[in-house]
């Protein structure tokens, strides 16, 4: 009982199971954040006065430490995955809204005028012109949100076995088995890098017009 992959029985999961759980707990919130961020960002683009207050509120939410967020939610959602996923969705939302707004706003006026002249209605123009052009900025935001989400799931270990791979960290302390912590950190990092690479691949697929091998000019710094 001292191997890197000997998962203690109280985690009730295999290493592969923990990976699957970790991905679900990390990626579902990013997806939820995206689904919410798209309309919210569109509202912010449509009504310019809405953007500053939305950014203000989301900045305050982002400043709330994840652990505190988890603990406060326990009262409402219990010690479940949901308690971990809600804060992560909020963090994703915070990262994605400015990324989408800036991306959509960066679409040149002439392009929009051309689309209108071709008879595109506002919905079609948004879906077929603005959104595709905003893809690089959107993906940059998704990369930050995804990587930080994968990292933050581990903190869920503190609220009672809800941290997927992070539970290995708690077990490493409880049973004084450092190799479990190594496993947790390395696996989490590899997952993050793999998801990041997948998103870069997605961007290349979605933006065939962009020159290959050159990063977007927009630095992936949000907030």
């Amino acid at each position, binding site marked *: 009982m001292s191997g890197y992959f000997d998962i203690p029985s109280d985690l009730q999961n295999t290493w592969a199971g923990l990976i699957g759980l970790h991905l679900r707990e990390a990626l579902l919130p990013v997806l939820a954040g995206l689904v919410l961020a798209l309309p919210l960002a569109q509202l912010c683009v449509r009504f310019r006065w809405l953007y500053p207050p939305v950014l203000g509120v989301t900045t305050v939410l982002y400043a*709330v*430490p994840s652990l*505190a967020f988890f*603990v406060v939610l326990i009262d409402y959602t219990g010690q479940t995955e949901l308690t971990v996923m809600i804060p992560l969705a909020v963090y994703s939302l915070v990262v994605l809204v400015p990324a989408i707004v800036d991306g959509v706003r960066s679409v040149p006026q002439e392009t929009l005028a051309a689309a209108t002249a071709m008879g595109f209605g506002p919905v079609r123009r948004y879906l077929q012109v603005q959104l595709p052009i905003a893809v690089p900025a959107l993906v940059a935001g998704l990369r930050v949100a995804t*990587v930080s989400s994968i990292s933050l799931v*581990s903190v869920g270990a503190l609220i009672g076995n809800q941290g997927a791979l992070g539970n290995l960290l708690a077990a490493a302390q409880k049973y004084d088995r450092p190799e479990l912590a190594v496993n947790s950190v390395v696996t989490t990092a590899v997952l993050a890098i793999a998801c990041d690479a997948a998103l870069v691949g997605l961007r290349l697929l979605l933006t065939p017009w962009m020159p290959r091998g050159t990063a977007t000019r927009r630095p992936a*710094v949000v*907030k």
Partner: protein
Amino acid sequence: MNVLNFVDAFFSDSAHWHGYDGIPRRLLEHVQYSLLALGLAAAIGLPVGLLTGHTGRGGNVLAFLATAARALPSFGLLVLIAIALGFNLLPVMIPLVVLAVPPILVTTYEAVRSVDPAPVDAARGMGMRESRVLFQVELPVALPLILSGLRSAAIQIVSTATIAAYVSLGGLGRYIVDGLYQRDYEKVVGGATLVAVLALTTLALFWAAGRFAVSPGVRRR
């Protein structure tokens, strides 16, 4: 609004205002951890970012390193290093610095690289040495963006420094972790409020620093 009640109860309890577990002491610890981590991260990120941005080389290596550093989970790193090295400041500093270096590094690199080449060439034409080009032309122009990178790093540090409490150190995270185990929501909400306020104060400080340090000519752009 029971959350507001918790906040009120937490801050009006006089026991929370003095002693080793009092708000002033925990706040000071938190600020100390944060400043130290930001200082270390800036000491790594700024020079490397300025140099690579100035020469325009190593961008891909930087992007790779930044991605790798971002991928490392802060909480995992904290626990791992704490188990390996014991309970001093090091297990807290390493994850915080790893967290803060990528935004500083990448933003500084991008900021210097995206400076308009015309004034840079003009400066060279005037016979400025490379170091003067960097510090007197590129740096002032890039400063707003560099500050935004530092700001982003600082806020992440302030918010993440709470995890120090998990390995028995102090800081505002103490209230959150203790509150969790003591089932004391006053403490959790009070601690979270303090962290959020500290983060917003940090934002305000960076805004003020930007007003003070960025030259008016650059700011107008």
